[in-house]
């Protein structure tokens, strides 16, 4: 899932300061699941903005709506009728959703209300952790199902650095050493030898080094 976190209120207020009628749009996918931009957060942000502007002596009008998914044009189309009488749009979706809104509603300023963080998994209620960087060439098959690119602070592909201590990364005791995890898992699977294979320098083109990426499925693409 894509994870995100609400931006500081001040930043959002600065964006919409010049406008009076705002459409606040949430997304019912990833950002709902990570409690950053679903229907509930839309309500909270709307109320917070109202109060904050009011405290500063300014009245604004905020309409709230949450789309099933902001990264699909058909869903984004649904709110076309709401655009009249709106000066600016604030999107609580991830960067993909914000851009899709901006693409569809070209004449309305669209502002992000969340910072899109990473692709992650939920470790437990209220805690999400990075798992994937979308490098486009998955190594997990040889690293025991644990990604050193996303989870090693130095993206080391051939083993732990000298800072690995008691299973934790040198940058913080809160961060697991990815290579400790990989090694433990390889041992559990009886694949210790895998470790000795040198993973050669990575071709980063698939990770975006080759410019913005695109997937085209010929059979499906219209």
């Amino acid at each position: 899932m894509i994870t995100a976190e609400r931006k500081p209120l001040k930043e959002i207020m600065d964006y919409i300061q010049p406008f009076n009628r705002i459409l606040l749009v949430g997304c019912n996918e990833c950002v709902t699941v990570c409690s950053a931009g679903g229907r509930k957060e839309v309500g909270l942000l709307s109320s917070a903005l109202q109060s904050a502007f009011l405290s500063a002596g300014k009245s604004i009008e905020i309409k709230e709506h949450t789309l099933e998914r902001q990264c699909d044009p058909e869903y984004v189309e649904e709110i076309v009728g709401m655009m009249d009488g709106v000066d600016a749009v604030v999107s609580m979706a991830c960067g993909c959703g914000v851009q899709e809104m901006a693409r569809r509603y070209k004449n309305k300023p669209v502002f992000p209300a969340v910072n899109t963080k990473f692709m992650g998994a939920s470790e437990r209620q209220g805690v999400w952790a990075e798992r994937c960087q979308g490098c486009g060439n998955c190594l997990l098959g040889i690293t025991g199902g644990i990604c050193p690119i996303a989870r090693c602070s130095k993206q080391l592909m051939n083993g732990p650095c000298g800072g690995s201590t008691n299973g934790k990364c040198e940058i913080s005791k809160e961060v697991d050493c990815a290579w400790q995890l990989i090694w433990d898992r390889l041992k559990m699977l009886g694949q210790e030898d895998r470790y000795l294979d040198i993973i050669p320098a990575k071709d980063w083109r698939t990770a975006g080094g080759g410019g913005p990426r695109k997937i085209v499925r010929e059979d499906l693409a219209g």
Partner: protein
Amino acid sequence: MKTNSVLEKVLANGNLAVTSECGPPRGAVPEKVKEKGQLLAGFVDAVNVTDNQTAMVRMSSLGASILLRQMGLNPLLQMVTRDRNRLAMQSEILSAYAHGIDTMLCLSGDHPHFGDHPMAASVHDIDSIQLIQMVKTMRDEGRFQGGAEIENPPKMFIGAAANPFADPFELRVMRLAKKVAAGVDFIQTQCIYNIPKFEKWMEGVRNRGLHEKCYILAGVTPMKSAGMARYMKNKVPGMDVPDDVVARMAAKPKEEQAQEGVDICIETIQRLSQVEGVAGFHIMAIEWEKIVPEIVERAGLLPRPQVA
């Protein structure tokens, strides 16, 4: 001989090699580099020049190495994969070699988190093992990593670091094996205070015959005070300072602690000289270069052999 490196020659002759290090200044002050170089001249076979050590901005390793080379010393160019992509690294290797620098150490580098630019992007285009491979390909195949041929390929004596004390311990020998497989010529270890653990590691190294495939230089660092001992024990990741070492330092009055640190360092060198597979010593006297001659001398490592 793979290279013209003095260090390689010393090692190949079967002498215990001695290296030390020089941290470049945080400013455009060549005098400081020279000063440190002078302190070390004649006492060591090569001088490591650190590369933005602890992720703090300093004069570049290449720049400082050139200054030392100009003084007639043998700089050992450290290179971390943190700050440059493979293009920059290869071009820098060419520059170094063009200035007569023929020995280098391939590292991944401390995380920017610890330095003075925690906001900086970490490059990590490749990792240290991949860097070893790349330098080896440049030297032995005369080609860049991208495949193109090199005119006058840089003949680098390739080093890397090893930390016998980091976790998981059982991986530590295997990781060295990987570096050997990647083509490393010599190894400098993390500073050693826990000698039994180091010996255990060396045993693993010997069992795999790795000491015959690369030279292992044991790292030592003299401690200036009990406070430093405690700091290294508790705060420096991957550092193993046993309690008895801290206690030994602390047992001395403040003014005698530095001397005690030097004594420990010398004892360590003497004891490690007996360990099969130890090919030399890397003395890291951090911001205390002037003590290196005393250590080298008292450890019986003088005079340094003259090689052609």
